C-alpha cells in the first residue's frame, strides 16, 4: 500500500513536458538502433549487388553510389554471359553457370519435396497413433528422428564418399538430393509434428466415423489444414539445402556441382576479379532473398514451430 502511494507521488511530480522529452528520446534511440541494424543487415547485400556493376577503378576507389559516384556497367554480368549485350551470344561461362544453377534448383527442390513427404507422413503418424517397435514407443521414435539433427556433416561425409562410390552415386544429383533429404528431415518432422498437434484429433475421428480410412482422413481432411506448416517446412528445407556447401564440396566433382561449390571455387582461384564474384554471389543469394521478402511469414512460422507454447 505504502509503495503504491509513494509511486503515485513520483508520477505526479513529473511534469508533462518531462514525459514528452523522455518519449522523444526513447523514440529516437529505438529508431536509431533499428536503422543501424538495418544498415548492418542490408549493406553487404547492397555492396554485392553494386559491385557486380562496377569497373576496377570504381572498386579500388571505393565508389558506392551508382550514377552518383560511378557509372554502372554490366561488367560482372558480361563475364558470366548474362548481360543484355552478351545474352544471345554463345558463352561457355554462362553454360557452366546455368548448369550449376540448374543443379542447385533440382537438388534443393527434390530434396525438400522428398523430406516434406516423408516428414509429414511420419509426423502425422507420430502425432495420432501409438506405435511400438521393439522397445521403442512414440517418444523414442520421435527422438530417433530428431536426434539426427545433432549429427555433424563431417561424421557422415566420409562413409558417404565410400558408400556412394560403391553405389555409383558419387557426383550425381540423386545422391546429393538423398543426403540433403536426410539432413533436413528432422527439421521437417519437428515443424510438422507441431503443426499436426494443433489440429484437434476430433477431426480425424469424425472422418473415420464418416467411413474414411486413416489414410483417407489424412489426405482429405488433415493435410489441407496442415498446408501452411508444409509450406513453412518446405521453405526452410529449401533455404538449408540451397545453401549447403559441405556435402556438395565433398561428394560432387563435375556433373552434379551446385552453385555454392562454384562460388567457393571462384573465390580461391582469382586475383581481384570482383565484379564476376559479385555477380555469381548475387545469383547465389537472390532466389532466397526474394523468397525471404515474399514468404517471410512462412519462414517465421517454420522457425518458431514448437518453441512457443
Amino acid at each position, binding site marked *: 500500500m505504502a509503495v503504491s502511494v509513494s509511486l503515485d507521488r513520483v508520477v505526479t511530480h513529473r511534469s508533462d513536458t518531462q514525459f514528452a522529452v523522455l518519449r522523444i528520446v526513447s523514440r529516437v534511440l529505438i529508431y536509431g538502433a533499428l536503422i543501424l541494424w538495418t544498415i548492418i543487415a542490408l549493406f553487404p*547485400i547492397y555492396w554485392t549487388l553494386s559491385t557486380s556493376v562496377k569497373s576496377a577503378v570504381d572498386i579500388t576507389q571505393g565508389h558506392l553510389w551508382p550514377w552518383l559516384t560511378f557509372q554502372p556497367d554490366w561488367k560482372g554480368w558480361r563475364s558470366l554471359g548474362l548481360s543484355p549485350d552478351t545474352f544471345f551470344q554463345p558463352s561457355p561461362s554462362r553454360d557452366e553457370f546455368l548448369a550449376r544453377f540448374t543443379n542447385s534448383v533440382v537438388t534443393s527442390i527434390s530434396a525438400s519435396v522428398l523430406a516434406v513427404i516423408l516428414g509429414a507422413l511420419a509426423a502425422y503418424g507420430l502425432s495420432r*497413433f501409438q506405435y511400438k517397435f521393439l522397445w521403442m514407443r512414440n517418444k523414442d521414435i520421435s527422438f530417433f528422428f530428431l536426434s539426427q539433427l545433432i549429427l555433424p556433416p*563431417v561424421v557422415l561425409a566420409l562413409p558417404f564418399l565410400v558408400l556412394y562410390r560403391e553405389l*555409383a552415386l558419387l557426383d550425381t544429383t540423386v545422391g546429393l538430393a538423398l543426403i540433403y533429404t536426410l539432413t533436413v528431415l528432422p527439421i521437417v518432422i519437428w515443424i510438422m509434428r507441431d503443426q499436426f498437434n494443433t489440429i484437434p484429433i476430433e477431426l480425424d475421428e469424425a472422418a473415420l466415423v464418416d467411413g474414411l480410412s486413416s489414410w483417407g482422413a489424412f489426405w482429405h481432411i488433415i493435410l489441407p489444414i496442415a498446408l501452411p506448416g508444409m509450406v513453412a517446412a518446405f521453405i526452410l528445407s529449401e533455404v538449408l539445402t540451397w545453401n549447403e*556447401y559441405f556435402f556438395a564440396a565433398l561428394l560432387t566433382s563435375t556433373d552434379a556441382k551446385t552453385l555454392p561449390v562454384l562460388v567457393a571455387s571462384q573465390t580461391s582461384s582469382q586475383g581481384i576479379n570482383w565484379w564476376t564474384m*559479385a555477380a555469381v*554471389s548475387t545469383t547465389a543469394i537472390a532466389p532466397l532473398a526474394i523468397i525471404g*521478402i515474399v514468404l517471410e511469414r512462412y519462414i517465421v512460422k517454420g522457425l518458431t514451430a514448437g518453441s512457443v507454447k
Partner: protein
Amino acid sequence: MADTTVIAIERRQAARIQGSHPRLGRGLIIAATLLLLAIGLTEALYKAGVTPFGFANWRPVLYVFVIWGVALGVGQVLSRGEAGKRALFVLPAALFTLAIVVFPTVFGLYIAFTDWNLASLSGRHFNGIDNLVALFNDPFFWNAMLNMVYYLLAVLVEYAIAFGLALLLNADIKARKFFRVAFLLPFMLSPVAVSWMVGKSMMEYRYGPLATLMRHLGWRSPSFFSDPWIARIAVEAMDAWVSIPFIMILLLAGLQAMPKEVSEAARIDGANGWQHFWSITFPLMLPVSVTAVVLRIIFKLKLADIVINTTSGGPGGATDTVSSFIFREYHYRSNVGYGTMLAMFYLVVIIVFMTLLLDLTGRFVRRIT
C-alpha cells in the same frame, strides 16, 4: 440411430483389425527379405572375389532395398490391416533414415580404425587404436576443439544482440514488417556467398569498405585475418550476421506470446524499463531462450563453410573449427581413416555435451519457472 452407427463402426473396425490376407502379406515380406539377402550376398561374395558373377557396383542392391521397403509396406497392410496402414505413415521415413544413417555410421566406425589414405596405393589396413593415439597427440585437433569452445561462448553474445533486436521489433514502432524482413534477410543467404561478400571483399585489406571504415576509425592497418583473435572475431562476426536473425525470430515469437496483462501490471506498479526487463520479461522468456540457444549451439557445432572459404583455418589454426579441420584432412590429405576417427570422436563429444546441456538447462528452467 446412434446405436446402429456404433455397430457399423465396430463391424468395420473388426474387419480392419485383422488384415484381409495375413498369410499373403507375411509371405510377401519373407520373399522380399530373401531376395534382398540373396542379392546382397551375391554381390558381397563377388566383391570379395569368391564367386565369379555379380554386378559392377552395389547399385542393384539399392534397388532391391527399395523393392524390399515397398514389399514390407504392402505386407504390413495385407497382414495387419488397420495397424499396418498406421505403421505405413512412419515406415518410409524410418527406413530412409535407417538405410542412410546406420550403414555409414557402422562403416565409419570400421574405417576409423584403419590407416586408410585414398592417395596411398596399399589400400586400408586395420591399425587398432593408432588413430586414437594420434588424435590425442594432435595439437591441431585440440586447437580446433578449443576454438569450438570460443565459438560456443560467442553464442551468448549472439543471443544478447538477438534479444535486443527482438525487443526493438516488439516495441511500438512503425514499419515493423519492413524491419522484420530486413533483419531476417541475412539468415537466407548462403554462408559461402557471405564468405566472399563480407570476408573476401568487404574485409579486404586495400579496398574493402569495412577496412576503409576501420581506417577512418583510427585502426591504421585493418587486416582482419592476420591476428589470431581478430581473425576469430571476424569469422564469428560473419557467422553471427547469418544466424542472429534465427535467434531473433524465436525470441520475437516468445515476446509476442507473452500475456499483455503482465507488462500492464508492471507498468502500473511503476517499474522502469530496466527493472521490468530483468524481473518480468527475462524470466518469462527463459524457456524460449533455452530452446533458441540450444538450437543455435547445435548448428554452431557444425560451423565449417565460412571458415573453409575465408581463412582455411588460418592464421596458424586460430579460426579452425573441428569440421573445417576434418574437411581439410579429407580434401587435401585424403587421410580417410584418421579423419573419420576425428569425426567419430567429435560425434561422441557432441553427444555427451548435448546430453549434459539438455539435462542442465532442463533443470535450470524447471527451477526458475
